[in-house]
């Protein structure tokens, strides 16, 4: 069913890998990538005379939940509007009222991409054909967050019956800069354009043709733009899932939407038998969690630097720091590293893992969980300090006490010091099911320090992952940035805390140190360039093409397998060990021919290894680890409860094509003139021919031919 949508080889390969899970959430993305990155979509020369196709158009797409649809769409044949470059908010008057050639397609500077302007455009949408936002090359100096002020308001632990005082961010508004644009529904398409030659062409076209002189109506032909982003799904999740179901009787069912989802990545310091599910006797695990995903207003540009990367890179570095010590001197409890996908959309990953634990579908159950330590946004701790957030309700109940390990590092860590609920975090989903002790480490005391939460500006630049100019890629990969240094300190602290929490001896703490080199390489890989020599070494050769796409779309708002697969291999390489077995055995998940047990405990990955100098042959090796994937698809879709209030119900609409082009439009008068002349020619020639043919014998009757042989 799904492979039909996979137009790129990469996607098909992805499915080979994940075929067991038979989920299809990644395909839209690959269709789009195919459109974006494969050149040579040929067009004839007449078309070239008329249209300039835009190469870089990032759309805002439609998402649906149990009650709403959000996002944008165009009509089936694309929205056409006369271009209008908006340079100030006062200029809106032209678009919304006075301009003589509606509908207009508004080109917005990123500074005008605010809630006020967008709402005015939305309410005047019969005069607005679409909006294109020109993204800046450097981040704005002010804050911008298209997310809500209270992320995941209704699916965390703080609902009315838990403690009404904390519900709906009553105590702390976590994201005060949030303007909620990402959760609005627009009836016109909104694209993001890069500030480059194409945008320059658009502006030039506007200046040449559309600029009103002294407020007079500009003369035809006018410069116009067309945007295609038609979305198949409509209304809400239950409607679109029903439509998708109904069509499944046909030979090639037409899906209209896909549940958002992906895979969580997890690994344990002690091997757990994953084939036997449910409660494990005498097993006690400390969960170390972070989230993998991010989103922005636009489909594919969600770098999630502070909101995602800072946390999971720290967790990965901590896991690496604990590798040797847990192999030599394992503490009493098992540490379970979990990286959750889809947390932006009402905690998809964590809610599914908790659901699986409750229903004995996971290697351990909730009773096995000793405590949870979650790493949230920690990228900016060096500006202030780190804060340990815990749940005031469970603290009040006395179920959590001083089990939170005292940390032994130089980092100033404090608790907020007043009764404040947990920030948006995966841990909330655990609390919702079971009172488990736990903390969330953040770099903010109350509201986020992140000024660009879930926006396209939450990128490497914002996280200060920058390199001196004139460095080669290899030099940048190993260059130690200040951010990497500070995150290394956090990772060391986290690793030591985890070790203590797992019951390890304090005397060992000095041996636990995160490696700044690993941290800086990961930051480079996730925020700057994923196709680097280090990432190439630690993944299998068949995944190389995924790196070569060059775009960092792995923590895009739609959780994709890119982040998952990279993190999966990173975690395996950082926590696992190299075993000396053949490639065949490795790929068959066994130590040797007779080994039938290992595959229940370990994961074997054949990675391609380093490329020696002056050689084209890589030396691959086998990594044995306890890294596993678990489904991160909301239980609502497992239970087929599309109106669920407990679980995420987000789905993403499918679409056929996303494209934009600019061209000139002729005046209505010229079009009518052409049609009139056409009719005139047709009628005249019909009349003339009739007359001539009826009198042919007279006209062409000549002396030389008999009249019946004429025309």
């Amino acid at each position, binding site marked *: 069913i799904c492979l039909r949508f996979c137009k790129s080889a990469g996607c098909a390969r992805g499915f080979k890998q994940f075929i067991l899970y038979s989920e299809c959430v990644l395909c839209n993305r690959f269709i789009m990538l195919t459109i974006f990155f494969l050149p040579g979509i040929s067009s004839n020369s*007449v078309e070239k*005379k008329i249209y300039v196709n835009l190469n870089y158009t990032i759309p805002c797409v439609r998402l649906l939940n149990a009650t709403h649809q959000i996002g944008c769409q165009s009509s089936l044949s694309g929205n056409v509007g006369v271009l209008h470059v908006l340079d100030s908010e006062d200029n809106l008057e032209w678009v919304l009222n006075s301009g003589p050639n509606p509908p207009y397609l508004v080109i917005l500077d990123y500074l005008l991409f605010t809630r006020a302007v967008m709402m005015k455009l939305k309410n005047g949408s019969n005069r607005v054909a679409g909006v294109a936002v020109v993204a800046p090359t450097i981040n704005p100096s002010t804050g911008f967050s298209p997310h809500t002020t209270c992320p995941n308001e209704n699916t965390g632990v703080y609902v009315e019956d838990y403690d009404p005082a904390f519900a709906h961010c009553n105590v702390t508004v976590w994201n005060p800069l949030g303007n909620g644009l990402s959760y609005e529904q627009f009836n016109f398409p909104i694209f993001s354009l890069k500030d480059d030659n194409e945008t320059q062409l658009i502006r030039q076209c506007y200046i040449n043709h559309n600029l009103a002189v002294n407020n007079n109506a500009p003369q035809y*032909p006018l410069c116009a733009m067309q945007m295609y982003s038609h979305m198949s799904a409509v209304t809400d999740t239950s409607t679109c899932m029903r439509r998708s179901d109904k069509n499944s009787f046909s030979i090639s069912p037409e899906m209209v939407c896909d549940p958002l989802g992906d895979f969580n990545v997890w690994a344990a310091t002690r091997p757990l038998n994953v084939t036997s599910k449910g409660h494990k006797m005498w097993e006690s695990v400390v969960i170390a969690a972070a989230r993998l995903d991010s989103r922005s207003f636009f489909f594919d540009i969600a770098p999630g630097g502070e909101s995602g990367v800072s946390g999971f890179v720290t967790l990965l570095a901590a896991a690496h720091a604990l590798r040797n010590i847990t192999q030599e001197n394992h503490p009493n409890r098992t540490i379970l590293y979990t990286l959750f996908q889809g947390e932006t959309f009402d905690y998809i990953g964590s809610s599914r893992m908790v659901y699986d634990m409750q229903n004995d579908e996971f290697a351990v159950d909730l009773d096995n969980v000793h405590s949870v330590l979650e790493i949230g946004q920690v990228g900016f701790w060096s500006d202030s300090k780190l804060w340990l957030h815990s749940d005031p309700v469970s603290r009040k109940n006395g179920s959590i006490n001083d089990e939170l390990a005292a940390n032994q590092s130089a980092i100033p860590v404090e608790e907020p010091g007043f009764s404040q609920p947990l920030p948006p975090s995966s841990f909330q989903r655990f609390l919702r099911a079971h009172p488990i002790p736990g903390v969330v480490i953040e770099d903010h005391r109350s509201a986020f320090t992140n000024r660009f939460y879930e926006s396209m500006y939450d990128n490497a630049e914002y996280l200060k992952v920058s390199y001196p100019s004139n460095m080669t890629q290899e030099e940048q990969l190993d260059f130690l940035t200040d951010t990497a240094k500070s995150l290394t300190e956090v990772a060391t602290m986290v690793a030591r805390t985890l070790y203590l929490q797992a019951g390890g001896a304090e005397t060992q703490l000095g041996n636990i140190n995160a490696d700044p080199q690993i941290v800086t390489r990961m930051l480079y890989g996730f925020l700057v360039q994923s196709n680097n020599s280090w990432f190439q070494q630690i993944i299998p050769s068949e995944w190389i093409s995924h790196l070569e796409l060059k775009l960092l779309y792995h923590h895009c708002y739609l959780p994709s397998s890119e982040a998952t697969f990279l993190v999966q291999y990173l975690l395996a390489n950082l926590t696992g060990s190299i075993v000396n077995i053949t490639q065949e055995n490795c790929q068959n998940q066994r130590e040797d021919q007779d080994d039938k047990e290992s595959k229940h405990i370990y994961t074997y990955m054949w990675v391609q290894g380093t490329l020696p100098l002056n050689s084209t042959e890589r030396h691959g090796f086998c990594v044995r680890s306890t890294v596993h994937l678990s489904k991160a698809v909301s239980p609502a879709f497992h239970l087929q409860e599309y109106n669920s209030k407990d679980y995420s119900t987000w789905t993403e609409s499918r679409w056929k094509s996303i494209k934009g082009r600019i061209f*000139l439009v002729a005046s209505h008068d010229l079009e009518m003139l052409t049609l*009139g002349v056409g009719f005139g020619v047709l009628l005249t*020639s019909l009349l003339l021919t009739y007359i001539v043919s009826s009198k042919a014998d007279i006209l062409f009757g000549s*002396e030389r*031919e008999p009249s019946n042989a004429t025309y």
Partner: protein
Amino acid sequence: MTAAVFFGCTFIAFGPAISLFVFTIAREPLRVIFLIAGAFFWLVSLLLSSLVWFISVQISNKESASQQKGLLIFGVVLSVVLQETFRFGYYKLLKKANEGLLTLSQEETMPISIRQLAYVSGLGFGFMSGAFSVVNILADSVGPGTVGIHGDSQYYFLSSAFMTMAIILLHMFWGVVFFDACEKQRWWAVAAVVISHLAVSCLTFQNPAYVNSLVPTYVILLVMGIWAFYTAGGSLRNLKLCITCKDKDFLLANHRSR
């Protein structure tokens, strides 16, 4: 532009051809067959010239603009020569076919005269060449945009449609003149047809100065039209008779008197 432009341009380009087809050809199956055969012959000539064109483009230097321009001119000339060669070939074939038809025919006269064949085959050539010159333009005229973002004239569609109309009618006239010239072995007339065809084709190199190409083309069209009219047996006197709308009976009587 829009559907309005599409229909406008279609009617301009094919209006005369369609009305000629409806009133003079559609009623007689034999004419329809010869029309389609003519169109096929034109297609074969295009196939050959495009083959040569394709090969020469492949072996040419794609970077050099002057070479490409020269190649284009060569292609046009070659195509015109091939089209006229095929017109001659079609004439020869029709002569043979007509003899065959005559033997089969029950009646003593030929079912279709060589002049009628000239007109029908010329229109067949015109239909196909018109279709090939304008269909891809028409296809793009349906979209919302009009030509001009790179500074071209926005009358592109309109002038293309008028050019196509001229080409279709010219093919018809050339057919009439050419066949008559072959019949009478007046080779200078054949040469005139080829040269005027070459001239019209090369005039399109004047584009995008549409006036410079359209006006001479319509002059040639007028000249060829008058020539074809006379060739087909028309005369000023007949035209006068026709316009003044003399009584049919009188005309018939007039005829008989001759």
